[in-house]
């Protein structure tokens, strides 16, 4: 396949890749010091009333299997390097969703001595969902916005 026809074939391949990534975002959840209010709302999105499996989101156990890292909490000093290590374990392409006011800005725990503050001081974050805790619908709305943003630049990136 010579190079100049690559754009036609490459374009179709790129479209399929993005389609697959947007339609089966496997997620992994890490609580970096949250009060577990946001964590029970994240698990609530998996249960029958909200059921994110209709978007293809499945909670995975190992960082190797996951594409989206959903993390909560104001990143305590102790869990700071673990958060970085998990982010590095995940294969590309990977995305990070910060759920809750603590993950977005430290929330009530700003200024506590054993707290780093917000998630994007440790790892790059793609979507922020404020709320204390955000409703399960707000979490789904955040993930939908993230997935929509994946599709948009895919066309612009060429």
């Amino acid at each position, binding site marked *: 396949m010579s190079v100049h026809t690559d754009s036609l074939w490459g374009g179709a391949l790129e479209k*399929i*890749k993005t*389609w*697959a*990534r947007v*339609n*089966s975002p496997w997620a992994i959840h890490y609580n970096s010091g949250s009060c577990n209010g946001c964590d029970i709302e994240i698990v609530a999105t998996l*249960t*029958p009333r909200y*059921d994110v*499996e*209709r978007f*293809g989101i499945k909670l*995975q*156990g*190992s960082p*190797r*299997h996951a*594409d989206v890292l959903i993390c909560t909490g104001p990143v305590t000093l102790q869990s700071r390097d673990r958060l970085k290590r998990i982010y590095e374990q995940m*294969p*590309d*392409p990977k995305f990070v969703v910060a759920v809750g006011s603590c993950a977005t800005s430290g929330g009530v725990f700003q200024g506590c001595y054993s707290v780093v503050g917000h998630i994007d001081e440790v790892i790059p974050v793609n979507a922020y969902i404020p709320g204390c805790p955000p409703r399960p619908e707000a979490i789904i709305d955040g993930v939908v916005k993230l997935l929509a943003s994946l599709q948009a630049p895919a066309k612009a990136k060429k």
Partner: protein
Amino acid sequence: MRALFNLLFFPGGLFLIVLALAYEWVDRKLLARFQNRIGPRWFQTVADIVKLLVKEEITPATAHPILFGVLPVVAMAGALTAALYVPLLGFRPAFSFKGDLIVTLYLLSLLTMSIGMAGWNSTSRFTMMGATRALTQLFSYEAPFMLALLGPAIVAQSWQISEIVAANQGPWLLLTQPFGFVVALIGLMGKLEMPPFDAPKAKTEIVAGALTEYSGRGLGLFHLGKEMELVVGLTLIAALYMGGIANPLEFFGKTLLLLVILSTLHAILTRLRIDQTVGLWWRYGAVAVLLQWLALIAWKGIVA
């Protein structure tokens, strides 16, 4: 040429991949509906596999790189070749020779063996425990499962699947050999590590069992191999125990009925510990099948 067609398109590769993905979707959708939720969209399993194949592949430093890459291919190959001997979709099996039932059984257990090897090869602690559990479970369900499938062979006095199916035209063997059918079905659940026998890949204990270190292509191939094995296993049990498969409609009817039974068991039971599953097999599974064999041989001896 026909063999290449069989291998690549009809009972083998492409067709089996599509069928495997469809059956996985049916399984996930059934489970979701049992749990009162909507469940995945129709193209979900295709999207999963495509995404896995285009994902970055990470090979752990401590693992043997060639072995790490080859094992998923071996696993899927095992399931693919087993499909050639099984009357998929009601048509005559692509190849059949004397004793192909035994070959199919060993091909089916090739996948579990390669998962065990993959677990040993990637030396993280979770995969080690996952591998030991997978192999312990393999040794515990393999014997009763094989004995259960050989029951109809004794009645038909041959080891060839097509002959066995032809000979057992009378009442479904489901009725005459109930123990054999139950053990075969439960054995298939054990082979596929479907809950309640999913101790080897118990998410809450050992993360993802033997496949924890796999990502991208390796994980996709293992996943696909397992789904193919589900399809092949269901057709095998349907062919032997439910009076053979004449046409595609009967094929889908019988295998989907078995799948519904498997999904119901998946939905209503708690995961058993590895020592409980092994105990269950040797205490009840093996004894039931041996009793049935005794009855068969006695009946064969008197009548024939």
